[in-house]
């Protein structure tokens, strides 16, 4: 029996897809059986970020409409045999699927997988409704900016209204240099405003851009962002992991220090 997690934010561009890709891959690294579902119909990009674009034959809408079997649509990851992707359709739009169909689809997958991650589109309309329909819990992603926080607050309210009470916060793209100067909100500030438990804080990292463009999630590697995502995965499976000290600068000495400081 699996845990169904929706990754949502309200605001676009804060890192939902990046988080889904990295958390999914990280859980697979911990030997869990994971399926990622891209629910952004019409504007899919989870497949691009995972580097699996050229392997897509069937998609989510095909499964819902009965054009293919689930097994035909699921794509196995390049590196991890226990990680699968159910891509979205690029040529349809969000009205092609309704919440009930999503629930049915997810239920079909529950037997086989330990974790089902749903990458939610931005907004609060049909796409969002579809994505949260079958979820047991939510990861709400936000950046430390007022506009993203407003939207995250709205989303948390909507999640509560839909009876999804287990929501955890991911604060993404934190820049400690700006926080110290007082130009950016700290993780504590965001946590206090949204009043939701924190599951991880990911620093802004150039490596993310590189990894996205190459289609290879960076979770688990030596970059700070990679470490942060790995810690989030461990917290999801129930481990109690102390939060990273994000103030480590990316100098040569610091790289050595973090290699020794493996935890």
């Amino acid at each position, binding site marked *: 029996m699996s845990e169904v997690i929706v990754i949502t934010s309200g605001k676009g561009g804060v890192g939902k897809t990046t988080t889904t890709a990295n958390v999914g891959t990280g859980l697979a690294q911990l030997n869990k059986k994971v399926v990622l579902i891209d629910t952004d119909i019409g504007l899919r990009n989870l497949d691009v970020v995972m580097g699996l674009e050229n392997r897509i034959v069937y998609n989510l809408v095909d499964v819902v409409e009965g054009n293919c079997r689930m097994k035909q649509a699921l794509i196995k990851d390049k590196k991890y045999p226990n990680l699968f992707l159910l891509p979205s359709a690029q040529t349809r739009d969000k009205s092609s699927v309704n919440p009930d169909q999503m629930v049915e689809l997810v239920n079909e997958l529950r037997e086989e997988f330990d974790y089902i991650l749903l990458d939610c589109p931005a907004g609060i309309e049909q796409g969002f409704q579809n994505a949260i329909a079958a979820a047991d819990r939510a990861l709400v992603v936000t950046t430390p900016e*007022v506009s993203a926080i*407003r*939207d995250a*607050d*709205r989303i*948390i*309210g*909507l999640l*509560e209204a839909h009876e999804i009470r287990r929501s955890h916060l991911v604060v993404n793209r934190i820049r400690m240099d700006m926080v110290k100067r*007082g130009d950016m*909100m700290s993780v504590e*500030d965001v946590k206090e*405003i949204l*009043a939701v438990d924190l599951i991880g804080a990911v620093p802004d990292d150039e490596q993310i851009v590189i990894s996205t463009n190459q289609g290879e999630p960076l979770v688990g590697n030596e970059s700070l962002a990679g470490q942060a995502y790995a810690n989030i995965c461990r917290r999801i499976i129930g481990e109690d992991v102390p939060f990273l000290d994000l103030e480590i600068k990316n100098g040569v000495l610091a790289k050595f220090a973090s290699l020794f400081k493996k935890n």
Partner: protein
Amino acid sequence: MSSPVILKSNRYGINLVLDDEIPFDELKEGILLKFREAEKFFKNSDIVISFEGRNLSKEEESTIIDLITQNTTINIACIADNDPQKELFFKKKLDQHQTQSIPNSGEFYKGTLRSGQVLSCESSIVIVGDVNPGAKIIASGNIVIIGSLKGNAFAGAKGDESCFVMALDMDPVQVQIATIIGRSADRGPFEAIRNRRHALDPQMAFVSDGNILMEPISKNLLNRL
């Protein structure tokens, strides 16, 4: 033989259907008779009244009203113009009347209002929780927030300027009382967060001289209410 006065009533009001040919004095007798019968049903209630079937002058209407109030325990809340005479219409009038005459009643809500949520109430309201930016609380009466007000509050929604908004931590985006709107000082939303006061600063917002005024809550202020 048709009766000169017919009472058509619902729970909230009475429509008097009057014969328009008989002389006024006879009409008065008919009305008194009918109302004595109706009194058992409407004893001590507030009702709305309307007239149909006969054009009455203002004096005649007054006379009839006096007749009813002096001879029965029925309390006429107001006179309604002819149409529409549906139950809903009477009820609305009655609700307004009743809310204005019970200023000390209110509703209670426990929980935080998140962005996009709207809480609306017909009387006063006490919220135990926060009102986040993007959330709105609308009340016909007063608003008391045991928590932070960071969103929008609209008190006196039916036009009552004597209503107020009180909060343990007063930091609203906008406060409206009746038709007067006050907005927060122009500063980026980030500054508001950065300069967050960690000590509570209970304040009250009320109308003074056509503007919204906010003052720290003190005995003096409460006495002035």
